[in-house]
């Protein structure tokens, strides 16, 4: 009999996340990694002269001005909102897990390429609120990290949301003291973003969120270095004890 191989820890995490969000009505959306300026910046209310557009922060494509390696998976949100406008839907909930790129020096906590868990929920005015954003993340983190998890919001700023918040999570690692960790940025979609998608901000509102996916795993499993994730090193896959979960019952994988 063939000994089974192993999935990458990111795949394992996305399956778990997809399941939790799936039970809250979220689908999964994809979009290009090589994006245009419109979906990555302009439509998301990032002004023309914003520092994020500088060469210092963003990878641009040679000979194709206006083409960037997406700096966030919020570009996928923009594309889905545009689809929504075209198809006349009144609401949508999606998570967009995917690779994003930042032109920054790498170290233990920074990579020039990493995964983001981005997503959004929109609906008719008044139906999707900041309180729902809180409820969604309350549940997500409790299911992902464990029942002792707590969530709090702090004021923040992002061009594509208003109001904007930072989401902190109270996490108690096994045998360690609990602590507040900054996990994601979020907020209510800025009316300009809704308008740019071709939707009417008087009729549609919703929240959007985004945070590093590797960071979720680093916190949950105690992984010290973000560079381990995309190194192509199989020792990383095998650095965890792995159990198969079948219909919520865990069974030890047959030892090899």
């Amino acid at each position, binding site marked *: 009999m*063939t000994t*089974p*191989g*192993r*999935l990458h820890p990111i*795949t394992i995490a996305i*399956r778990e996340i997809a*399941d939790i*969000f799936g039970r*809250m*009505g979220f*689908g*999964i959306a*994809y979009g*290009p*990694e*090589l994006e245009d300026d419109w979906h990555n910046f302009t439509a998301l209310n990032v002004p023309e*002269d914003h520092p994020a557009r500088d060469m210092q922060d963003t*990878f*641009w*494509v040679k*000979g194709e001005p206006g083409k960037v390696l997406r700096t966030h998976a919020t570009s996928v949100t923009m594309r889905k909102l545009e689809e929504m406008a075209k198809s006349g839907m009144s609401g949508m*909930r999606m998570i967009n897990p995917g*690779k994003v790129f930042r*032109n*920054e020096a*790498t170290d233990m906590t920074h990579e*020039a390429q990493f995964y983001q868990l981005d997503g959004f929920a929109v609906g008719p005015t*008044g139906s999707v*609120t*900041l*309180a729902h954003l*809180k409820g*969604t993340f*309350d549940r997500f983190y409790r299911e992902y990290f464990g029942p002792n998890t707590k969530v*709090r*919001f*702090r*004021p923040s*700023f992002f061009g594509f949301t*208003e*109001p*904007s918040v930072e989401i902190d999570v109270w996490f108690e690692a096994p045998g360690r003291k609990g602590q507040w960790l900054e996990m994601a940025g979020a907020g209510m979609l*800025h*009316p300009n973003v809704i308008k740019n998608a071709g939707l009417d901000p008087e009729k549609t*509102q919703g929240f959007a969120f985004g945070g590093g996916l590797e960071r979720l795993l680093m916190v949950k*499993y105690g*992984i010290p270095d973000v560079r381990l994730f*995309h190194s*192509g090193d*199989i*020792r990383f*896959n095998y*650095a965890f*004890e*792995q*159990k*198969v*979960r079948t219909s919520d019952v*865990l069974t030890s994988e047959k030892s090899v």
Partner: protein
Amino acid sequence: MKISRKWLQNYFDAPLPDAETIANAYTFHAFEIDEIQGDLLDVKVLPNRAADCLSHRGLAKELSAILNIPLKTDPLREILPASDVGTYHVPTSLAVKIEDPKKCLRYMGALVKGVKVGPSPDWLREALESVGQRSINNIVDATNYVMMNIGQPLHAFDAASLDSARDKKLAIKVRNAKEGEKITTLSGDEYELSPNIQLITDANADAPIALAGIKGGKAAELTDETTDVIVESANFDGTTTRRAAQALKLFTDASLRFQNRPSPELAAYGMREVLALITDIAGGEVAGVVDEYPAPASAPAPVSTSLARINGLLGSDFSREEVENVFKRLALPYTVVNDIFTVTPPFERTDITIPEDLVEEVGRIIGYDKIAPKELPVDNGAPDQSRFRGIERMKDQLVEQGFIEVSTQSFAPMGDVLLANPLDKNMPALRTSLESNVNDALARAKQYAPLVLAPNQKPKLFEVGTVFPKEGEYVELRMTERVPEWGDAAGTTDNLSVAKLEDYGKDYVPERYELGAYQPFSVYPFIVRDIAFWIYSAEGETPPGPDVEASKMEELIREHAGPLLVRLNLLDRFEKKGRVSYAFRLVFQSREKTLTDAEANETIEDISGALSQIGHEVR
């Protein structure tokens, strides 16, 4: 922005709480705190508030609203001296010219005569030191103090170092640098300039005296002999200043403030404050103030929102009184008619332009902790995860076939899409295929196989990732070898962007795994050793079943192997002429160093010795 609690206290009659309480107030209602050191707080002012909050005044005002304690004084609400009839007159001996009013929105220049440059009074020196600044002299300290107090960057030039020969009139011109023009800054560094950098120049001599909005020049530096100074309180365009600072790699307190576009109105308040302070601590007389302000900023437009809209966006249940109270605490002038609030932002609150900005003010001042979490209403119909599930189904099949999933870098040495600004010059392109990455990973996997895989497990890898050939990006599945079960037509690669994965995944439930805590692996080389032996069984004793027997042997080996043993696998077991043979594979590795063969041999000898002692016969 570094602030001190003592400095903040100047704004309040009531004693402020301790630094920790102040830090919490900011954190949950305004800005994150990077660091607290005694009475010093490093506040991470958000970009939308950097126009007014990179100042003690702005942060005092925030604190006043958050803690609901009134401000004693607000320098931005004190009426300015009217320039034509008030305290200052236009001097006949100083002229100011702006070349491009889009890049310099306002330039106020004051001539102060008869100052005495010297050390600062104790209170001023202490105030600057309390926020980590160094005292230089009374005039420079006055400009820095006022900048950190109300947010307006200021500068003072030695008037005597400017050319006034022709008509006894000093002249300042704000213009773009010429290609190759040079300036030496106050810190003694020389910069070669290009036309996208704006300069303050001595117009009579056509010589640069400062990098506009960034740093002063050596040519007009104050000295102990200085008696007349030109004080600058200006407003330089944010983008121009930021780009110049970036080009020069010279980010300063001044450039940081200008790039966040404070209102040009602030310049007049800055000038009033700094002139009052200079004449107070350095003497002298204000000979006059020139104010070049080609297109005065219009007052911010009123913004309206309703109580229903506020609660409808926040999901809250705030009352009209609670909302009104927020505007009162923030001292935002407002009216309320039929639950519709109209706020007229003061000039420095450049961030309030749309109704949602008011919603944010309400949410954060009352506190996001006052908003109870709500679960989203149940959505009709199952969410669409079919494409995702299709991809995952494929991955599950590969894992079943023994494949290990890897994730590799998107950058490559060669490719069809080149980056304009690669991070690593050896990886200037985007990968066109996953092939070389998975092959490279396979080579390393073969090397590590004894460490992580079973002895009979062949390393086989796959990756699902985006590739960027010239025809356009797609998601590639790449395997290091074919999957025979997938048929003869299936190769080692597939384009998942065109594959019909939605139907394939629609009803599939991906396999789920639970991972334990991460166990770091050693970076040092490992050594593999096999050991085989006939086991001893006492006469007349019934041998235990093979499983029990094997685990007993394993236990025995582990007991004598020590901490260097990182992996132990049963290679084989066979019986011959009533005797039973076992073979195990042992992998040794240290977390601290590269193991020597001698060390591995020594451990093997220890194990062999222990086995022999019981009567097992090591071969």
